[in-house]
Each structure stands twice: as C-alpha cells, then as structure tokens.
C-alpha cells in the first residue's frame, strides 16, 4: 500500500502547506478565544449550570418560563417548584432537589378527568347559537345550562390539548386516560372548572361536581348527583365520604370493588378508563340509560 501512495502523483509539498496552514489557523483562533475569554470573564452561578444539566432540556415552556435556563434560575431563586416541569423524570428531579436544596416529593402520575355527566340531560335556560366555544358562551349569562357547574360541551378544552386526549361525546367532554399526559392545559382553559386531576390508576371517579341539594339537582339535570349518600354507606372500605352534598373518594383506601358504581341510582360514579374510544363511549351511555 505504501508504495502505491508514493507512486501516485501526490505533491508532498502541498500536503505540508495544508498542515502548516491548518495548524496556523487553529493556533491563531485558539489564542484569540483565550484572550477574549480572559477579557470578558464574568462569574456564572454554578448552581444554575448544574441544575440545567439534569433538566430534560426540551425548552418546551410548559413550566411557564421561557426555557430550561429560565426554569433553572427560577428554581434556584425559589420562584419555581419542581413539579411544574412535567417532562423531567422523577429520578432527575430527585437529583436536582439535593443540588438546589429544595423539598421534593415524587408524586404518582396523575390523569385529568371531566367531572360532569350532563350533556343533553342538563336542562338549558336558552338555546345558544353563537360561536361554538365554551369561553365565548360564558359571556351569555355564563352559559345556557341551568346547572352552574355543568360542562357546556363546545370543546374549548379539545382545542388546547396537545395530545388530543379529550373529546366531546354527546355534548360533554370525556378524557381518554391512556393518552393524557396531565399537562394541565384543559384544566386552565375550562371556564366551568369541570376538569380535575386524579391518580392514573384510580378505578372509579365521580362524574358530577354540583354542590346543590338533591331536590334542586333533580330540577336541573337528570344525571346529576342528588347527594343521597348510598355510595358512602355501602362502600366496604369506607373510602367514600359525603362532603357538601358530593361524594369524595379517598383513593388510598379504595380497592376498586365498584360496589358504589352499582349502588348509585343516578350512575354518577363511573368506572375510570372505560370510555376508551368514541364508539365505546356511546355504548356505555346507552347501557347507563337502560340500567
């Protein structure tokens, strides 16, 4: 091989020039950079740099800051809390916690859920034919529904969900827990504050959040919770408790036996994660109507 190299027409002087030129440029640039760094040396906060390394670095802005660097500065100055960042994994967050001496409790993954089962069942005060958007409908006497906490079903939440996990079925929003990443966009947007976060593995959830008494709810919506308390009395684990005319489920005690789902006369307590696709949602609603 070596003699081929020699025999081929290689001007070794040219190769020498090339090496010399590159070495010259490299040295000149290196010295220039050194001089500039010496002249413009400013102290950089060490802690911020270390925190940035552990952050996911996606610069998505989900935490409300302009990017990971802004979020890191916020963390070090105490203006931001670690759970705002949804993207970084829990182990990384633990590492950041000890670097920046913050308290951090690894919360289990949560999923959004719509706490309303109204749709057509909820009576209307008037027929709204304006812009098909919940936020704009709220301008007209805070919506057409008699019940002040009912989901208006015009899909402001579907427009902001990056994953497309929330859909409007039969005029009420439903979250698909398998796709939801609990980013909180829908919670911020819903004008009726119908959407809440529950643990991803929660077996059941309460599909109503009206605090009115039974008789009033009967007049407003045929699917609403009439605060009869049957679910609280029949729960074998005593996980459900009636607070201000609404059942509150303590998911640490709940074992998913679903007796409350069977006992509830108005079918307000639903099985979580059952509505996984458009067609399935329709069957579930029909079954509830007959049952």
């Amino acid at each position, binding site marked *: 091989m070596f003699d081929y190299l020699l025999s081929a027409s290689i001007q070794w002087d*040219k190769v020498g*020039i*090339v090496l010399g*030129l*590159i070495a010259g*440029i*490299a040295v000149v*640039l290196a010295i*220039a*950079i050194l001089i*500039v*760094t010496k*002249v*413009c*040396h*400013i102290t950089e906060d060490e802690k911020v740099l270390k925190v940035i390394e552990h952050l996911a670095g996606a610069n998505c802005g989900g935490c409300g800051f302009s*990017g990971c*660097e802004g979020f890191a500065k916020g963390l070090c100055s105490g203006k931001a809390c670690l759970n705002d960042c949804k993207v970084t994994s829990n182990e990384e967050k633990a590492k950041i916690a000890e670097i920046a001496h913050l308290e951090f409790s690894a919360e289990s993954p949560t999923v959004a859920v719509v706490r309303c089962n109204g749709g057509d069942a909820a009576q209307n005060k008037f027929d709204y034919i304006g812009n098909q958007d919940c936020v704009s409908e709220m301008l007209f006497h805070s919506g057409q529904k008699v019940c002040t906490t009912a989901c208006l079903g015009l899909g402001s939440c579907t*427009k902001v969900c990056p994953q*497309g996990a929330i859909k409007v079925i039969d005029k009420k929003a439903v979250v698909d827990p398998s796709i939801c990443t609990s980013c909180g966009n829908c919670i911020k947007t819903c004008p009726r504050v119908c959407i809440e976060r529950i643990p991803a593995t929660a077996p059941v959830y309460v599909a109503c959040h009206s605090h009115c008494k039974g008789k009033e709810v009967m007049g407003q919506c045929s699917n609403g919770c009439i605060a009869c308390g049957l679910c609280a009395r029949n729960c074998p684990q005593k996980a459900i408790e009636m607070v201000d005319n609404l059942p509150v489920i303590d998911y640490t005690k709940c074992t998913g036996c679903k007796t409350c789902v069977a006992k509830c006369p108005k079918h307000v307590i639903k099985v979580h994660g059952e509505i996984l696709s458009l067609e399935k949602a329709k069957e579930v609603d029909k079954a509830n109507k007959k049952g």
Partner: protein
Amino acid sequence: MTAFLIIIVAAFINNAVLVQCYGICPFLGVSKKMGNALGMGLAVTLVMAITCLVTFPIYNYVLIPLGIEYLEIIVFIFVIAALVQMLEKVIKKFMPPLYNAMGIYLPLITTNCAVLGVAETVMDTTAMETIFHLAEGSFHVGHAVLYGIFLGLGFTLAICLMAGLREKVDNLEMNKHLKGFTITMATASFMAMAFYVFALVQI
C-alpha cells in the same frame, strides 16, 4: 450604482430564506414572537457581516494562491465557530441588554445554513461579477460585506414578516394536525410566492 444593485439583489431577489432556502430551521423555530425574531435576525446579520469580512479574503488571497481551494469548508467552519464564540463573550460582557435580546440565539447561528451559505456564494467572484455586471476581478471585500449585511437584513425581513403573520395564524381554528408546522409552512409558501415576483426583475 453597483452598491444599490447589491442591496436589491441580496435583500429581495436572492432572499436568503424565501428564494434560496437557507436558514429554515431558525426561520421556523424562532419566529413565534416578533421580539425573538428581530433579535435572531440582527444576530444573524451581525455574524454574516463579520463572516464575509473574514472568509472572503481568506479564500481569495490565501487559499487560491496556495492552490488548496478544497479546504474551504473546514477553514470557513472553523472561522465561523470561533467568531460566534468570541462574539457571544464580547456581547455578554460589554452589552448585557443586547445579550438578553439576541445573545441566546448566538450558539444557534453556528449551525445556521445561511451563514455558511453566504460565505460560499460570496467567495465565487466570477459568478458575483456576472450578476452585478462588474469588470473582471473587481469584486472586492467591500462588495462582499455589503452583500452579507443585506442578505442578513433580507433574512430579518422574512423572519419578522413571518413572526407578525404567525402571531395571528397560530390561534386560528383548524384541524389539530394542521396546527404548528403545517400552517407555518403554508404561510411561508405564500410569502415565497410574493418574493417570486422579485425574481422576474431584469437587472
């Protein structure tokens, strides 16, 4: 007269983004808000001006006499990377408000096609002379820097127009998949159509 010609050709007829397709990544990424877009545009213009000032003499008075033009990619990239790093430090030290406005984009510029693109097109003096009807061998560093500056300003013009349009377009009502990149690309397509008219100008 040639100066005026260079300005028109660099900013409009051969616009960096909408005609020659250089620097699309920052054009898509940074044009969400007008402030960012202007900061990025000015940073790119500054780097382009200095790049032309440095790379044009290197190519024509160092590489060609030595007969090693093939090295031009390595030398240009080396010079641009070092320039951007030095620029970032100088601006961070002496002009902090300017650094907050456009400093964060400077590391992005090293991998920006527009900067290397302008270095490549400017070094080819024969092509430049045919475009600007200059006599043989009369294309010098001044023309190159002028071309670099106004190519950068053309880039700034395109990215600011896009930022203005995008602030309106992003909250339009459309299918989820069309949001984000697709609608930006459609807006850019209409802007490119508008700039296509400049190509028919006879210089």
